[in-house]
Structures are given as structure tokens and as C-alpha cells.
């Protein structure tokens, strides 16, 4: 039995709205149907307030992943004749979607890594949703490591928002050896690779990777919808990057017993071989070790390190 005698609370309103829309016939519910069914709307003093509340709730539902469909014969969105329903796909978990206790433990750590930063809340609420799939005993083995990711790039929040809303974005991007150029693209994913935040995005018809630290302007989120990206395109781009990285090999000579020697895990011959994603980023890591390291190959990396250090001298002469 419902005990609704007092005023409906915001969470109750969203929950009731969801239930009413889920139970709606195929043709959906009109706005008036919804206003008659969910008590909070009826309690509003004016049509204006009612509509405003409904607009806000629609956004909240969408943000929470409840796909609201608007059906309108007039071809315009959200008119008075619009009808609303929830896409059944919103609730269609894949039948083979199954998490183990180990998976849950890792997801808990992943959520914890946000450490009250930008996406800490969606990470937590996503975790709660995943926990509802069953009483899997999350592995109780306490992880001794506290992961804390840092996502302080100003571009992070707008990019996450655009990924969320499937929108196009525009920003200025500067490659290490080139000039800045304005890019318009469809952001797909934010990834953390080799200590760097990387945006996977579709520019024109190509899915590419962009380093967040090379975005040198504010990110503008467009009202326009982004391009369609297929899972195949994404995995292809990811495979391409992995293949590219596997071909980038550097050989270094490190001074025995120095911090660099320990850091890179050099062997007795004082030589280190490593793979890298981006030559300019690797050069930064190497410049930090100063005289303790010299690059044997590739020559382009050796020159890059040398030029970088020369520039430091020029700027501080």
C-alpha cells in the first residue's frame, strides 16, 4: 500500500515518473496524463511551474540513463501534443551480463580512484546500479593500494559532458612539432594511457587519439549531435594504437646505480629497451633524468632530448 499522505519528495517524483512511463501504453503518455498521474505536478501552482519541473525531471532521467522518447506527429519536439515513453532498451541488460566478486572489487577501486573529483558521483551511482544485479560477494580482500587518479585538465569536464550527450566539440589542438589547429570532432571515450589522459574521438571519418594536455583552448560543446561511431571503428582505432606503440622502441643507456637505473629497471649492461606511445612524452620523461641517461636510438628521440635541453638553456640564459 502506498503511504503518500505527505508531499512527494524529489526522489519519489522521479521514481513515480519512471514507473508511470514504464507502464504507459505503446503510444506513450501525454503531458497531461503525466501531470495527472504524478502528484507533485498537480501540486504546482501554475502551468509554468509544472512545465519547468517536468523539463528538469526529463533532463534528470536522461542524465541517469533513462532514455525518454518523445513521440510527436507534428515533427517538432516537445509540443503540447507530444507523447512520452521510456525506451525499453534503457532497461535491457545483456543476458550474459554477469559480474563476479573480483569484477566488483575492481569496479569499487575504479570508483574510489575518483576520490571526490569530477566523476566521483557518477562512478559511485554506476557502481550501485551494478551491485543491484545480484548479491555477489564482493571480494573482501582489502586492497592495500589507494588509487587516486588526477583529472585536472580543464577540458575533462566538457568532454565528459559531450560524450554523455553525444555532441560535437570544438577546440584548438597543438601537436608537439606543429602549429595549433582548430578541430571539430565527436568525442567517444576518455582513456588513461601511460600516465596521460587521451581522448578517443572521430574527426571527419577517422577515429583518432588526442592528448588532453595538448588541447590549448577551452572546449566548446556544440548543440549539434556528433557522428555515429560503430564499435568496430573504436576497436580498430584501439588496435591501431596498440600496434603503433609496439613498433616504437627506444634503446637507452643509463648510468649504473643512479635513480634512472633503478627506475627503468636496467640490467647489468646498463641498457634499457622500452616501448612508447608518443616520442615527445617519452623525451620529457628522459629529460627529467638529465645526465643519467643517454638515448642510443632512435636518433629522432636523441635529437628531441638534446633540442629540449638546449631550449631550456636558451630560455634561462
Amino acid at each position: 500500500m502506498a503511504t503518500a499522505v505527505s508531499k512527494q519528495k524529489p526522489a519519489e517524483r522521479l521514481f513515480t515518473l519512471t514507473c508511470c512511463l514504464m507502464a504507459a501504453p505503446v503510444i506513450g503518455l501525454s503531458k497531461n496524463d503525466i501531470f495527472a498521474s504524478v502528484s507533485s505536478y498537480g501540486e504546482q501552482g501554475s502551468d509554468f511551474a509544472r512545465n519547468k519541473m517536468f523539463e528538469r525531471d526529463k533532463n534528470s532521467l536522461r542524465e541517469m540513463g533513462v532514455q525518454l522518447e518523445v513521440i510527436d506527429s507534428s515533427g517538432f519536439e516537445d509540443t503540447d501534443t507530444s507523447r512520452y515513453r521510456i525506451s525499453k532498451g534503457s532497461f535491457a541488460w545483456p543476458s550474459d551480463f554477469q559480474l563476479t566478486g573480483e569484477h566488483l572489487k575492481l569496479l569499487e577501486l575504479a570508483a574510489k580512484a575518483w576520490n571526490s573529483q569530477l566523476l566521483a558521483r557518477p562512478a559511485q551511482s554506476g557502481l550501485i546500479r551494478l551491485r543491484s544485479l545480484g548479491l555477489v560477494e564482493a571480494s573482501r580482500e582489502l586492497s592495500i593500494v589507494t588509487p587516486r587518479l588526477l583529472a585536472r585538465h580543464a577540458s575533462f569536464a566538457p568532454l565528459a559532458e559531450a560524450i554523455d550527450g553525444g555532441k560535437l566539440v570544438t577546440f584548438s589542438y597543438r601537436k608537439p612539432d606543429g602549429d595549433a589547429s582548430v578541430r571539430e570532432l565527436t568525442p567517444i571515450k576518455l582513456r588513461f594511457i601511460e600516465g596521460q589522459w587521451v581522448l578517443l574521438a572521430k574527426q571527419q571519418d577517422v577515429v583518432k587519439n588526442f592528448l588532453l594536455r595538448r588541447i590549448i583552448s577551452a572546449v566548446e560543446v556544440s548543440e549539434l549531435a556528433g557522428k555515429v561511431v560503430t564499435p568496430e571503428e573504436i576497436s580498430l582505432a584501439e588496435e591501431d594504437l596498440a600496434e603503433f606503440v609496439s613498433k616504437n622502441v627506444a634503446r637507452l643507456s643509463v648510468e649504473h646505480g643512479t635513480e634512472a637505473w633503478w627506475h627503468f629497471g636496467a640490467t647489468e649492461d646498463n641498457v634499457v629497451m622500452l616501448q612508447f606511445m608518443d616520442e615527445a612524452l617519452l623525451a620529457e620523461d628522459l629529460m627529467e633524468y638529465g645526465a643519467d641517461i643517454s638515448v642510443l636510438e632512435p636518433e629522432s628521440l636523441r635529437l628531441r632530448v638534446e633540442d629540449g635541453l638546449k631550449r631550456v638553456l636558451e630560455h634561462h640564459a
Partner: protein
Amino acid sequence: MPKQEIDAEGLFNLSLSIVGLVLKDGPMLTSELATHFGFSEKTITKAVITIANSEDVGRYETHFYVDEDLLAEGEVDFTTAQSQLDRPPLLSKRQTTALAAGLDYLAAMPQFLDNADLKQVREIIGSGTAPITSYQPVGSESVLLEVQRSVDSQVQISAEYVNQLGVQSVRTIDPLRVEFVGRRHYLRGWCHSNQEVRSFRIDRIISAKATGQPLSPEAMSAEIPVEVFGTISDELIVEIQASSEASEIFWNFPAVDVKRNQDGSSTGQIRVGNLQALGRHVCRYGGEVVVLGPPEARAAVTDFASRALGDERVAENED
């Protein structure tokens, strides 16, 4: 489990999740749900009341029948009335982004290299395929294990440590916590030589051995500062300018008065404990970071870069 307050959207999300779990697995204790979802029993009860109060006032239809007597006794049981809702919605894009990025982050940690569970869960959440890793400090893997074990068993360690100036020493440390911040592991521990909580980069610990001694009372009562760089004594204020790409340098030091310039670069002051260390931090950016003052800080940078290039080269440049 963490107890936390919850806002309207959070409560809505929790209610949806409880519907999914209880309809699937049957009646449960409030306390069980509290443990499972990581909220207080009070919050769980609030979420169940949210479910109970859902009704279509236009059609006089209730969505769920909740047994409120049982709820008062700490048990959650309900059945579906007119509702079609039987599980929570799929993850929203934002939830997916957040969890996927977190998982990506874990995948970058050496201890999760080749972790089959992580690989599976990343595929399930859609955060990507195998991690793309380059060098992992090889030597530090065994150190990390030893340090983790001693944090777990709460015993002191004796560690050979190379500090950022390349000076080696043997320290007795009460290990308190291991953090993976940004891209590096740090041991936060009570340093017996300094009598305070210090951060030790794991890749600078050459060897670590548990001594079997329990943690000192000072360590047990010590507070761990939020930032890994901790407090700095004998600090120097250094003014720097960093290009847009190199502005992350301000995240690595206590920084004040950071301003963004029109050309996208940033200018600000950082507090530095040691000039030699500043040299390496600035040189890393290959000219993208410039020390504006004081002169001794600029000299430290020049010194580091000159030594990295070799002295002859400096002579050439000076010509």
C-alpha cells in the same frame, strides 16, 4: 562500508537498484542491503519508502506493494503491483565514462598488468582492450609487493632509498598506506629519521625489508596529509611560466597565484624545497616551462640542463 548522505538523484538511483535486487533475489534485511550498497540502514529505509510511495494518483494505482510492518522490523520485502519496473536502467554514459576511466587507470598500475579479471571487466564496461603499457619500473615490482605486505601486517620496514637528489640512505619507515597518484606509486609512511609522515616514491626504493617491529605509537596516531608532496621546510618561492601543454607542473608543487595568460600559458608561484630538484622538474618540459625568478632558481635549471648536455656543449653554446 562508507556511510554517506544522499541527494535526490542518488536516492532515486538507489531505489531503482533495490527494486532490481529484491525482485531478483527476494526479501532481504535492511542491514544486508546497507552493507551491499554501502549506505546506512536509514538511507536504505528511505529508498524503500520511495518505492512504497510510488503511485499513479490519476489511475489510483500503486506500483509496488511494500510490507511496511516488516520494513519497521528491518526487513525489505515487496512485490510488483502495476509496475513494469523490475531492474535498474543500464549505466548512463556518464556512469560508464567514470567507471571506464577508473578501470583504465587501474590497468595502468603495474600490479594489475596481466590481471584477467580486470581485462574481463573492462570489456564488460567497454573501457577498452588490453592496457597499452610501456616501461614499468621493473625493479620496483618486488619492492611494491614487500611494502604492500608490510602495510597489511602493520610492521616497520627498513628501506634503501634514493631521494630526488640522487642521495642514497637507509631509512626505517612505518608504512601507513600505498597510493597510486597520477602515474606513480607512493608509500606514505612515518619516517624515523625525520619524525614525520613522508611520501616515498616506490620506484626510488631500491630495497625494502620488513623488520618485524610493530608500528610506532607516533605512526599510529599520525595524520596523513592529503597531498603527496607534504610539507616543505626551508622552502623557496619560485615564479614560473608554463605553456598550456606544460601547465601540469603547477599540480606537482604547492602553487599560489596561478594566472592564465592570454596566449594560453600560465604564470604563478610554486613553493620549492630544493633547487636541484626544481632543475629536473623544469628541464623535463624542454623549454615549455621558464623560471622567471629568483636568479638562483634560474641558475639551478641552467646547471641541470648543462650537465645533462655535457660541459663541452655548454662551452659551444656560450661562444
